[in-house]
């Protein structure tokens, strides 16, 4: 398949755009592969890409029950950041940031990664102190972080209510300038094309119906398009993790599937050139290149596989937006939707071998999986290829909950709807 380039763009523009080829093939599944990855979302596709690129394993199939980009990779609010508190998360997410910075070049596909910064607002002196602590922890690990006063914030963010007269006045903020946004669909398509070019079969509209077993060992999968054998079966299915793992006889996991809603407004002229979050609740907003404000808030807070939420959260999200930006009151909402998040018990992910022989598990992304896509795929590919975790994902085991080694960035305990 040909490289995309400015020349190709120009030539196609001048010839009526009739010469574009599909970015990936639509192969039928073969009877066997070296590795089968269940889940054609961002993480599964990135895993396939890095298996081929970093480890030379190209006899790989990615099995997707719908179409590519139909799950959370096409449903998130596109923010990319690494401003966590704990060192395990710092190192993992900063590796992701390193991969993001070269991703468009690496994939030969423009993922529109834009390092426009991410600003967390603080509304009490105690919260500002807490941000200072997190900022120090970040800088200690070599990640950029910058405390900002309301005066500095006013110079950078227009329209924000900094009058000090609100219920929750802004007392400062923590900025990560290397954070930003990326075009979520392009990430899925770019990884799919990159994997496909290296020989990976991407099989859409193919749902897993069971696992082939030889004793304890997983030896393949049965699907709606027949049986596929593979000595290594990797699961990267986010919100569907418990359902897929129950097919393999794993009845209980430290995961709850919950719904997270997101929203996009009508297109506006440029008003917001950073990602900004509200500290007295849960709200985040950025403006896309097309002009729409993309925003969301907290989980609805109950178990759900329905990919849609309920109205109290819609009201809360918009109340928080208007508390920050009163001037947006007349902006109309264009769309809202829901995605199913695999909420882990400590808010951190799981990337591990097992739990059965021949099986590999990638889950627990809560509602922060998009930013992790490159590092998740990179680490999961390493784990599958070498049968052991990379040091970056070694802490993210499945048994850490039972060993007392939880990585609870927020210090929230086993309350998945609060992470």
């Amino acid at each position: 398949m040909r490289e995309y380039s400015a020349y190709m763009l120009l030539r196609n523009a001048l010839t009526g755009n009739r010469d574009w080829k599909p970015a990936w093939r639509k192969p039928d599944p073969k009877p066997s592969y070296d590795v089968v990855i269940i889940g054609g979302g961002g993480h599964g596709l990135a895993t396939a890409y890095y298996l081929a690129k970093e480890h030379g394993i190209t006899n790989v199939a990615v099995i997707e029950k719908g179409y590519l980009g139909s799950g959370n990779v096409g449903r998130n609010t596109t923010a990319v950041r690494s401003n966590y508190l704990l060192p395990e998360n710092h190192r993992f997410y900063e590796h992701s940031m390193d991969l993001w910075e070269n991703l468009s070049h690496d994939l030969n596909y423009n993922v529109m990664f834009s390092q426009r910064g991410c600003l967390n607002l603080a509304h009490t002196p105690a919260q500002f102190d807490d941000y200072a602590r997190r900022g120090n922890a970040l800088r200690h690990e070599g990640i950029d972080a910058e405390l900002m006063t309301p005066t500095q914030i006013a110079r950078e963010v227009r329209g924000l209510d900094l009058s000090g007269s609100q219920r929750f006045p802004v007392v400062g903020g923590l900025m990560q300038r290397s954070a930003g946004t990326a075009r979520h669909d392009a990430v899925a398509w770019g990884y799919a094309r990159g994997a496909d070019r290296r020989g990976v079969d991407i099989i859409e509209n193919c749902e897993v119906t069971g696992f082939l077993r030889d004793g304890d060992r997983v030896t393949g999968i049965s699907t709606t398009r027949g049986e596929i054998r593979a000595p290594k079966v990797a699961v990267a299915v986010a919100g569907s993790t418990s359902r897929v793992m129950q097919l393999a006889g794993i009845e209980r996991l430290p995961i709850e599937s919950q719904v997270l809603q997101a929203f996009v407004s009508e297109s506006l002229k440029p008003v917001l050139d950073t990602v900004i979050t509200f500290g007295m609740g849960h709200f985040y907003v950025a403006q896309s290149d097309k002009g729409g404000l993309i925003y969301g808030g907290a989980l609805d807070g109950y178990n759900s596989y329905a990919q849609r939420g309920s109205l109290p959260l819609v009201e809360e999200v918009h109340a928080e937006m208007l508390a920050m930006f009163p001037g947006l009151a007349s902006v109309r909402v264009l769309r809202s939707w829901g995605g199913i998040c695999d909420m882990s018990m400590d808010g951190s992910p799981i990337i591990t071998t097992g739990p059965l022989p021949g099986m590999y598990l990638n889950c627990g992304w809560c509602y922060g999986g998009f930013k992790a896509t490159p590092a998740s795929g990179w680490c999961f590919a390493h784990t599958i290829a070498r049968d052991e975790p990379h040091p970056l994902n070694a802490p993210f085991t499945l048994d850490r909950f039972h060993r007392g080694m939880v990585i609870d960035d927020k210090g929230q305990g086993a309350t998945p709807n609060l992470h």
Partner: protein
Amino acid sequence: MIITCPYCGPRDSSEFVYQGEDGRTRPDPASTDQAAWNAYVYDRVNTAGEHEEIWQHSGGCRAHLRLVRNTLTHKISSVSMARHATVPRRRRKAETPA
């Protein structure tokens, strides 16, 4: 989502606090069985379909309720007082060890 509280009648779900899936029974506080405690705190069935769960009507009568709600459609098929469910719940737990 409207939850019909046995005391208060139909109320908006924002009056209620979700307390997670039913059927998790806290081990005896004197128990030192690490595996049982870990399973109680961390492990979930995470059912897709008819889901038995506990809510508290914290913005109303404060009763703890046991709902059967379909996690694929959000349709609630049953609401009862959580304490009334205690006996059958333990029996079911004993029949299907974790």
